[in-house]
């Protein structure tokens, strides 16, 4: 508990001109805090705060100045609780100067800051030595690249591969498409040299024909059991894990309409790769050289074999293999039938280089079928092409694009996690290891486990190679963070973690289920046990707990509740100005409000905004608190949930949605209108629309009239 509070009232950036700071100082002094004032605490006067903290006169610094999102380093005092009161962006820049409502908003925010700081404590890290060893599962291009990258950075690497050799699919390729300028033509795959380089490194242990049978623990100290094909088992400790199990081809049955499996001269691109590696492209039916080879991309929308996430790989492989046809037999002709040929970025040059060969002919078709004519000839029939509405082309060989399905283990999950939430890493609707695609592409929903390569997204070799390197860097970072007890992103460096007041735990297990990262396990008494390095410090458990026993040292239901109570609710006899509480997600909504302020967009002075780590950390009881206290409405500003979620903690806003149902019921019991509480979805780029959205909510609430609970 911060008993010695110091308030630092900054008058810079227009705050002094817009507000009566003397009055705010009185508020602070009334609460028992010391007060200092400056025209710029962010400059040399920051030393005043430092002196107070280091001198021991202040252990809770309430800095009433700019947004907590700026000047973080200036106002970093690890020994003390630091509470930032956002007078600049969210009061004076976004409200009329000198107005009574603006002043009372500033007063409330200061009181909220004081209430919070008084109950907070500076977090103390739970640090523990971390194992500097990276486990890489899968030794295809991504895995080999990750292993090389981690090993060359000085970490020990344990590489586990199911097959009897390194290289995965990369080692089974005849050529790969051009990766270096001019990006034309096909090159030897780079996997052999990488595998050789890996074998030469002393700090790499390779387990071939092996698989991971169990992983327990947390980042910094995962306990891993590896079983070889001969039944022997080994144990290893890993600080972090790279999941690079790659892909497997889409099952043959999906290509039935093309005759794969029944017509011998219809093959997949994998089979063609095999033929090319052996030097000749022939018709499997009679072994004769294939003079006319048709490639079918299988990307029609009604096509069973169409994978919506296929992206550019199928296009690039077809182009590359068309080159094989021409390289291995100059008299042969290659035809490519596509719905959508995708060659992004520099691959445009590769596409152009293939296209320049007159013996490679490309044709878009709305629908492509493979038929057998009465005379036995194999025919590709395409509809809706530039060559004609319906055309048929006799060919010797048909090559179908092998769809890339993420390989996470069909019967047995690839990682065998001993986690309460399950053995596998959570996957997206396409079966890829799930991550926040925009912000944290390599993250899986299991902290310290990073997905790389085709198990993360359908990709080509160059991308898999980059992916491996990037995932290795994330793995190293996870190990470093584990050693110091710091959180991984998005709350990078946060030392706080949830504590559980277990005497009051009802063993309902909700926290263990709602944690998006599987950080909590249950002990024999069905009480939650935290694996601190798995925890991302989002507070979703705190929002979930029905008996509110989960708190951080600097973030708790009690602190939020105190902030709510700190707001002065006007109770004028007739027509009091409304007060609306806003919980704003610190990842998107709160920065969006700051940006709106920065642009001097104004919003209603009835709002009292509390930043929260995630909307999922808002416990229902807080909403009840707010309406009981007399707030006329509560808005929850957060990220979009659902399939295209933007939540930085994946499920926070979605979980809030389910809790909202309960909250509305509570409102009903209190004889209040459910419309008084609303969730508003905001993306960080919505700052320009935000004031109008808030205004609309204020209007809705005002139409309902004042909260009848005011004054009780």
């Amino acid at each position, binding site marked *: 508990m911060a008993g010695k509070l110091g308030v630092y009232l900054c008058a810079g950036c227009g705050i002094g001109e817009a507000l009566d700071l003397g009055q705010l100082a009185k508020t602070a002094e009334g609460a028992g805090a010391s007060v200092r004032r400056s025209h710029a605490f962010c400059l040399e006067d920051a030393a005043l705060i430092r002196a107070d903290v280091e001198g021991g006169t202040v252990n809770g610094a309430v800095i009433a100045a700019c947004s907590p999102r700026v000047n973080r380093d200036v106002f970093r005092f690890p020994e003390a609780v630091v509470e930032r009161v956002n007078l600049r962006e969210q009061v004076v820049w976004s409200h009329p100067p000198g107005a009574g409502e603006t002043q009372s908003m500033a007063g409330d925010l200061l009181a909220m800051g004081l209430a919070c700081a008084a109950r907070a404590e500076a977090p103390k890290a739970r640090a523990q030595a971390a194992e500097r060893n990276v486990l890489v599962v899968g030794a295809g291009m991504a895995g080999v690249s990750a292993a090389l990258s981690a090993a060359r950075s000085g970490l020990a690497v344990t590489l586990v591969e199911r097959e009897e050799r390194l290289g995965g699919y990369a080692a089974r390729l005849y050529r790969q498409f051009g990766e270096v300028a001019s990006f034309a033509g096909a090159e030897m795959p780079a996997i052999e040299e990488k595998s050789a380089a890996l074998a030469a490194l002393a700090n790499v242990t390779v387990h071939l024909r092996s698989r991971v049978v169990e992983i327990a623990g947390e980042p910094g100290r995962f306990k891993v059991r590896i079983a070889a094909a001969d039944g022997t088992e080994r144990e290893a400790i890993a600080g972090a894990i790279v999941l690079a199990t790659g892909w497997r081809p889409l099952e043959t049955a999906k290509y039935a309409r093309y005759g794969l499996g029944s017509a011998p001269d219809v093959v997949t691109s994998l089979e063609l790769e095999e033929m090319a590696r052996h030097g000749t492209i022939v018709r499997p039916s009679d072994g004769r050289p294939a003079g006319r080879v048709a490639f079918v991309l299988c990307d029609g929308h009604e096509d069973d074999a169409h994978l919506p996430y296929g992206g550019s790989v199928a296009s690039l492989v077809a182009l590359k293999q068309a080159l094989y046809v021409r390289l291995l037999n100059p008299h042969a002709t290659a035809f490519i039938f596509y719905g959508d040929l995708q060659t992004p970025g520099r691959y445009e040059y590769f596409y*152009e280089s293939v296209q*320049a060969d007159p013996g490679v002919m490309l044709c878009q078709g709305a629908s492509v079928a493979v038929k057998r004519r009465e005379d036995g000839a194999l025919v590709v029939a395409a509809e809706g*092409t530039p060559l004609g509405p*319906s055309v*048929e082309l006799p060919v010797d060989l048909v090559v179908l694009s092998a769809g890339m399905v993420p390989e996470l283990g069909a019967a047995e999950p690839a990682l065998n996690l001993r986690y309460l939430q399950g053995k596998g890493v959570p996957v997206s609707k396409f079966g890829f290891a799930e991550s926040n695609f925009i912000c944290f592409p390599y993250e899986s929903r299991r902290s310290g486990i990073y997905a790389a390569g085709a198990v993360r997204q359908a990709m080509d070799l160059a991308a898999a190679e980059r992916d491996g390197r990037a995932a290795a860097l994330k793995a190293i970072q996870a190990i470093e963070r584990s050693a110091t007890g710091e959180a991984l992103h998005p709350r990078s460096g946060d030392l706080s973690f949830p504590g559980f007041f277990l005497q009051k735990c009802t063993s309902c297990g909700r926290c263990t289920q709602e944690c998006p990262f599987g950080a909590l396990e249950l002990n024999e008494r069905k009480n939650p046990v935290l694996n601190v390095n798995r925890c991302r410090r989002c507070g979703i458990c705190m929002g979930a707990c029905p008996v509110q026993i989960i708190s951080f040292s600097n973030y708790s239901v009690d602190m939020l509740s105190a902030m709510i109570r700190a707001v002065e609710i006007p109770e004028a006899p007739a027509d009091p100005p409304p007060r609306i509480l806003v919980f704003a997600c610190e990842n998107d909504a709160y920065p969006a409000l700051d940006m709106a302020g920065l642009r001097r967009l104004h919003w209603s002075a009835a709002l009292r905004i509390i930043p929260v780590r995630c909307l999922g950390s808002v416990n229902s009881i807080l909403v009840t608190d707010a309406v009981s206290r007399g707030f006329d409405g509560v808005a929850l500003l957060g990220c979009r949930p659902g399939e295209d979620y933007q939540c930085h903690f994946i499920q926070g806003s979605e979980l809030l949605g389910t809790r909202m149902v309960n909250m509305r019921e509570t409102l009903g019991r209190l004889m209040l209108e459910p419309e008084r509480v609303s969730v508003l979805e905001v993306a960080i780029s919505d700052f320009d629309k935000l004031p109008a959205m808030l205004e609309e909510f204020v209007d809705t609430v005002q139409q309902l009239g004042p909260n009848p609970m005011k004054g009780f």
Partner: protein
Amino acid sequence: MAALIEPDLEFKRAILGLDAPDLTACYQCGTCSAVCPLSTPDNPFPRKEMAWVNWGLKERVLSNASIWLCHQCAECSAYCPRGAGPASVMAALRDFSVRHYAAPAFMGRALGAPRHLLLLFGAPVVLLLLLLAGLGHLDGLPAGRIVFAKFIPDGWVEVIYSLAVGLALAAAAWSGLRYLNAMQQAGQGRVGAAELAGAVVATLRAIFSQRNFKDCTRKRPGLRKTYREHAHRAHLALFYGFLGLVITTTSVAVGMYVFDYQEPWPLWHPVKILGNASGAVLIAGLAVFSWRRAADAARAGKSTYTDWLLLTVLALTALTGFACEATRLAGLRQVAYPTYFVHLVLVFFLLVYFPYTKFSHVVYRSAAMLYSAAIAARLPAARAAQAGLPAADAARSLPAA
């Protein structure tokens, strides 16, 4: 009914070799058809030709009217995002097409490459020398006032040339009919003789007004430079210059054989004035074309052998014609008669070989325009409107439609 496609890589290579080296870059965006001032929604080109050539669909390309409906404004090449040069491809296709339909085929091959030039010029030289030998005129040039008929009598020239040109016309007609027949078998379908006859007036109007060339420069989609902006006026000069000379020659023949009004006719004679004026206009048009071809070669696309062959032979024919007249008037006997000989050789080359040179476009382009006019006359009013034409006007405007 699905159409069987038979890609012919050799055909594709042949077109690539006819100065259309970038055609493989086409990715079928259709910008070319969208910017073409002559193509219409009912018959868009040159996009489909680009697709067909890339797939080596020889018969389909060559039995297609569009390649001759194109008047080479080069807007497509100016706007092609891939630099595939559709205009060059269309020119190459016409070039190839002339040889494809040539009858007899060896004549097509002979006119298609410079190595046969000596033989081709040798033929009329030998023919004329044999005639001179037969007439006993090889001993020396005729004395006295210069009258070309004294050197090579008009009657012999008329007989030999009429026979040769008659053969050429027959060959050209045969080729034109083969092309027309090929179009009838192909995509746009068959039109009856009555429909073709009905389209004759519209086609002739389009030809005499050179409207397609005019549309090429007038209906431009944007401001990009095509280096073909001179084409309408220059071709107008060639067309009417050449027509003037045809009228002149015919009038002289009629004057001589019907009214016994022997050469040379005085300079003030209207026919003579028409001839000289037409020759001058023709040379002016040729000069513009030659100059632009040389000056803009890099930007407007290269010129092929067949392009230069026709330009050169036409220019030399016109120039030697003027040279004959000038040296005759100047009394330069030693120069005038040999010049006349050369002029006759060139005229032979121009007229007798015409079905196999670029000159044959008068046949193929007319056939394509006639066929397309007949097809377009079938268009319902709505489609005609879509094509940007008043319904009643559809038939008339067809070469464009």
